[in-house]
């Protein structure tokens, strides 16, 4: 029989639960460590305190890193989503000569070790004489993140019926009108996911920031430096805050999406004749 045996089903769910917990375990440990008063993490924790968070919030250096990270993430997400929108159309919507090659081209950077790619970008920018700063980090991260955002949008485009756009053109819409009235609204969920993906991937990205940011420091870079230079409980504190920020964006993003969907559904229900 093609069905899965009930016992197997239960085992599969059990395994799924164990792995899911394991995925989040290190983050929980990090949060725990950040609340331990002692200089080194020792379990069981003898004294809890908010001291490391107070230190973190007081630190100018961390504040600056957070601002840099945020600017980089927003820039990367905005540029990615524009590139990804058009890229996804070329990837999945239009039937053109170079399409197959373009698809492989887009996939290639994703299939590349980020550290090697980061180093190569550093070498390249150095050679052509670009001053390294957060600007170059945006460029470096785009090389890896824009293709991923393109894939995310492309998944939506693959489910999109191109006849809609052709029909709009056929009814007299200009290229721009068809794009604005038909393509964009229908692809909106994919574009939004792509934006969210890019924002979060940039926020957590280390290799490109490490090799291409020059004197500017992002949060993952700051963490790395402290981890290498000697453990301080501010590392888990900053880590935890960074996780919370990411989670907030993720939850917030999906809430907005769900909210908009609900509003549209209600609007549609009201417009339908009783």
């Amino acid at each position: 029989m093609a069905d899965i045996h009930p016992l197997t089903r239960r085992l599969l769910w059990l395994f799924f639960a164990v792995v899911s917990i394991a995925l989040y375990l290190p983050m929980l440990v990090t949060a725990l460590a950040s609340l331990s008063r002692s200089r080194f993490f020792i379990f069981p924790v003898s004294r809890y305190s908010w001291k490391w968070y107070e230190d973190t919030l007081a630190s100018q250096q961390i504040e600056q890193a957070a601002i840099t990270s945020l600017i980089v993430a927003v820039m990367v997400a905005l540029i990615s989503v524009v590139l990804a929108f058009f890229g996804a159309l070329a990837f999945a919507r239009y039937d053109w000569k170079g399409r197959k090659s373009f698809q492989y081209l887009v996939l290639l950077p994703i299939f590349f070790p980020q550290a090697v790619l980061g180093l190569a970008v550093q070498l390249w920018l150095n050679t052509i004489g670009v001053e390294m700063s957060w600007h170059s980090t945006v460029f470096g991260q785009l090389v890896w993140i824009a293709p991923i955002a393109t894939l995310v949008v492309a998944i939506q485009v693959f489910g999109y019926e191109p006849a809609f756009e052709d029909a709009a053109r056929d009814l007299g819409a200009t290229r721009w009108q068809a794009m604005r009235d038909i393509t964009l609204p229908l692809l909106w969920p994919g574009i939004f996911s792509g934006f969210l993906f890019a924002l979060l991937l940039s926020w957590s990205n280390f290799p490109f920031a490490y090799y291409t940011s020059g004197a500017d420091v992002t949060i993952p870079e700051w963490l790395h430096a402290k981890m290498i230079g000697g453990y301080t409980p501010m590392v888990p504190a900053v880590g935890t805050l960074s996780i919370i920020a990411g989670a907030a964006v993720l939850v917030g993003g999906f809430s907005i999406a769900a909210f908009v969907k609900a509003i549209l559904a209600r609007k549609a229900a009201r417009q339908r004749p009783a």
Partner: protein
Amino acid sequence: MTDRSLEPTMVGAPAYQGEYQGKSRDEASRKSAGLVAERLKRFSGGAGMWSAVPLGLLLLAGFFGPLLLVVLYSFMPRGSFSPIGWPTLENYRDIVEQNFYISFGWSLAMAVVATILLLLIAYPLAVTMVRLAGKRADIYTILIAAPLFVAENIRLQGWSLFFDKAGLLDGASESLFGAGTGSLVGNVPIVVFGLVYVYLPFMLFPLILGLTNVAPDAREAASDLGATRFQIFRDIELPLASPGILIGTLLCFVLALGAVSEAKFLGKGVVIPVVQDIDSAFTFGQNWPRGSALSVLLILIAAAAIVVVMRRVDIDRMFTRR
């Protein structure tokens, strides 16, 4: 068929364009249906190319340019800081003579083991997501994907705090059973564990995509024709899911080959992966050509794997689930 579908174009298009775009009626009415259809088709072709331009330019400037430069540098004399000079193979000779192949070997071995483990772990998870999760699959997908948005450093540091001496595991077992586990970091298996942990989503999502391509009907039909569970798995499920399996395997292998943080934070220096050697060559060693030569070798291995796998995968078919 064709005639009828073009009728609205003939009747409708000139009128609409005349009204809404303010074009002269003459110009508009000169378009016959055939011409409009031709234009639509050409528009579609040109639009494909034009849409590809922005991303294409970025990849040209940020991916191919740098990689080409790395290749150029790898043929420069030791310690030179310019890609223009008399080409030489001495960097590649150095790699063999100065035992750099050891880090290569470690990276390759760990990547292979981690990829095999990932296949074994992610496959049942993918089956759960595709065949059991039903409507809640979206939520589980987010659950699994969310850790990707936390910096690798933080998560590996978390595992280190879990496994290290006086860490969560050691401390907990000490107070529960009176005997601690001691330090479990600083060995090769824990590095492989780190690789498996970090790259799990990169194996899982392609597998899910692959398994979604296995039509439930095909499975039922095979069962109806007398196939056992194992025969269905071997003859139907594996071949139909193979594009996803191949992509996941490739992705994880290449990424694990280029991984460095796992050895740093969990291995505590017990093994040196090849990327760390590359990094040192560029930074401490100030020997760009050597770093480039090592990178080129890594790139070649990755490229070979990509070419082998991608020739068997049709990207359109994979995403459209036909």
